[in-house]
């Protein structure tokens, strides 16, 4: 990892030299503007991605793969973990160089759009599932399953969670391979449980129990009870899908149109609203809830395992953090939706596509997931790794937080997307105009969902 950091520095030094050469030309006194233009073109020629330069076809030849990742370059565990993955891959495949590109998580799709518009999309991109449908539609994505031979594919994917693979299939094909995957769980503050007279070893398993325990915490521990992060700051609807699916409904129908006005969905959101109106849940945004949980003022937080590490950091020295599986509605099995990201290929030519596949194959291999889980905190999508002493058994022995989520991996329901190019607008409409008013501000679930469903249908039907 330290080695890699140095190599980043080396690259930037080279680039700085380019800039310096260009800079020398730049400051001739007259016509500054024109010369800057010239210098820019010179600088650009040397710094633009390798994607543009055509590679030689031979497999022994050196080839580079550009990899856009929202984890890369971040100063946290995600960045470090990604660097570790790349280092391990380059060690295993000396003829392939990975050129990582960082991006802010909120900007992934923008960046891919703009890179594609600029004619230099990355070869491999880490794309969030909530944006994957839009990405399929907007971007020149090459279905991953089409790249290798069938045998190669089958061999590589053996041991992978088949339930998840089939969940992400589109038109019978895996277009993007699940990579950094999380599913929602209950994070709870064991100290507050004890204070409220609850048994931290027996966390709630149903929504009703969640409510009961939350009210107990509120009354006896002097803290807020629970926060069900359906109102997501990023306007993502994965938790909305999770609760609706767990109540036996669908947010998006098989036709890609809204189904959230059906009774099961209405019931799910009514339950969420009940948490708020009963006082079990504070009427605040998810960001505030995370802060409250970190401050030890919230008993339970129901959200994605992605934040496990940061919650763990925040709780260190303050309270005991534990996790439990996503709660069910009564006796129906919980059916949380996964969130996180998959790996998609945008490489233009065969050679780069092949190299991209090699890279993806490695990232989702046993070695890959060992690093992903132990360094970043995402779920190992090859469940057997958790008990394999060669891989993650030591990690899970010491670290129980991911276990409940892993246990639910086979219950996950697929993330569903709306159809058409206004899908993202539909999600925002649902979250802003229905979920938030219902859950936080007491809007009538049935009528609100029904009117928003009508609105979304209109949006989706537009050209």
């Amino acid at each position, binding site marked *: 990892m330290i080695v890699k950091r140095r190599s980043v520095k080396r690259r930037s030094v080279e680039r700085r030299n380019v800039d310096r050469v260009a800079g020398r030309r730049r400051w001739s006194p007259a016509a500054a503007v024109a010369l800057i233009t010239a210098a820019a073109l010179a600088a650009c020629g040397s710094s633009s991605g390798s994607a543009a330069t055509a590679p030689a076809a031979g497999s022994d030849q050196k080839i580079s793969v550009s990899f856009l990742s929202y984890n890369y*370059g971040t100063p*946290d565990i995600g960045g470090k973990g990604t660097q570790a993955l790349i280092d391990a891959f380059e060690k295993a495949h000396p003829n392939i160089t990975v050129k990582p590109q960082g991006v802010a998580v*909120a900007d992934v799709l923008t960046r891919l759009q703009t890179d594609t518009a600029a004619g230099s999309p990355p070869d491999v991109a880490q794309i969030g599932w909530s944006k994957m449908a839009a990405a399929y539609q907007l971007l020149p994505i090459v279905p991953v399953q089409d790249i290798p031979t069938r045998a190669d594919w089958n061999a590589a994917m053996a041991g992978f969670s088949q339930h998840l693979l089939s969940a992400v299939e589109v038109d019978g094909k895996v277009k993007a391979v699940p990579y950094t995957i999380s599913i929602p769980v209950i994070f709870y503050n064991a100290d507050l449980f004890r204070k409220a007279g609850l048994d931290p070893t027996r966390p709630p398993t149903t929504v009703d129990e969640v409510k009961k325990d939350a009210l107990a915490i509120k009354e006896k521990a002097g803290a807020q009870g629970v926060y069900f992060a359906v109102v997501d700051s990023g306007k993502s609807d994965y938790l909305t899908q999770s609760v609706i699916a767990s109540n036996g409904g669908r947010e998006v129908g098989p036709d890609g149109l809204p189904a959230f006005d059906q009774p099961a969905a209405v019931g799910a959101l009514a339950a969420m609203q009940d948490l708020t109106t009963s006082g079990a849940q504070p009427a605040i945004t998810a960001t505030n809830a995370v802060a409250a949980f970190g401050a030890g003022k919230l008993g339970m937080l129901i959200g994605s395992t992605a934040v496990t590490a*940061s919650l763990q950091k925040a709780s260190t020295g303050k309270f005991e953090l534990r996790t439990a599986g996503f709660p069910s509605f009564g006796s129906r099995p919980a059916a949380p939706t996964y969130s996180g990201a998959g790996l998609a290929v945008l490489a233009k030519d065969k050679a780069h596509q092949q190299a991209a596949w090699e890279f993806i194959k490695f990232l989702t291999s046993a070695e890959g997931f060992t690093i992903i889980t132990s360094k970043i905190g995402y779920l190992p999508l090859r469940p057997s790794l958790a008990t394999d002493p060669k891989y993650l058994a030591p990690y899970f022995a010491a670290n129980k937080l991911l276990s409940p989520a892993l246990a639910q991996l086979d219950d996950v329901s697929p993330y569903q997307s709306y159809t058409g190019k206004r899908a993202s607008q539909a999600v925002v409409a649902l979250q802003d105009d229905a979920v938030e008013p219902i859950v936080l501000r007491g809007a009538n679930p049935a009528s609100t969902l029904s009117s928003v469903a009508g609105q979304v249908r209109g949006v989706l039907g537009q050209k």
Partner: protein
Amino acid sequence: MPSPSATTRRIVGTVGRHAFLLGATAIMILPVLWALAASFKTPGGIFDSNPLPSPATLDNYRVATRDFPVWRLLINTTVMAAGVTLLQLLIAVPAAYALVRFPPRAHRVLVALIVITLLVPPQSLIIPLFLTISHLGWRNTFPGLILPQLYGTGLAVILLRDHIRAVPSTVLGAAVLDGARPGEVLRLVLLPLLRPALGAVAILLFITAWNEYLWPSLAAPDIDHATIQPGLAAFLTQEGPEYGPLLAGSMLATLPIVAVYLLASRRVTDAFMHSGLR
């Protein structure tokens, strides 16, 4: 000899003024102080109500400087902001000079067209600007970062026009009579006189460019070419926001400007003081 009531009134006035100043200043710098304190907090401590860091740690600064290329981003931002400021002044000074000293017949229309550019929301230009620099292959380059930001040059022109108007026309006339050509009047007489005003306008432009978020995030997304503002957003990760390092990074980003301000405090104040912004 002031009457007792006048003295009382003066005391009340002084106290009132200081109360007003203190109160307003406190409210305004509260976020800065909070951010400063929070940048020394532990990941758990940041969620506490206690505004003071206890325990205090330098971890956030360590993360911001070691695991994050904060210095490189600061250099990029400085180059960008300085470039934007310099180019805008380079373009705006002669234009404002011409508008004041030898206005063309259409100058009213021209001024209106310049003012309109101030009103055009940058967001509405971003799609075409982005496509332009993409086609030129200017993404992740300084020209791509800097040149499109010249859309804001109109502001510099309007501000400088006022400043140039405030320069006594007789002094410029004297230079003309001394045989100075228009360019020489500008270079040898007007520019030296305008220096404080240029300083003030430059500071305004520099701060604006320094704080720019949207354009750099599109024009230079590579972390090696990014600027500090969108760069800081990298701390808002999917795995939970890294508030501490983010605030530490932003403190480091604020530091250079504040240091320059403190060092050149007199000059900057003087610049604003004598900028003749009326």
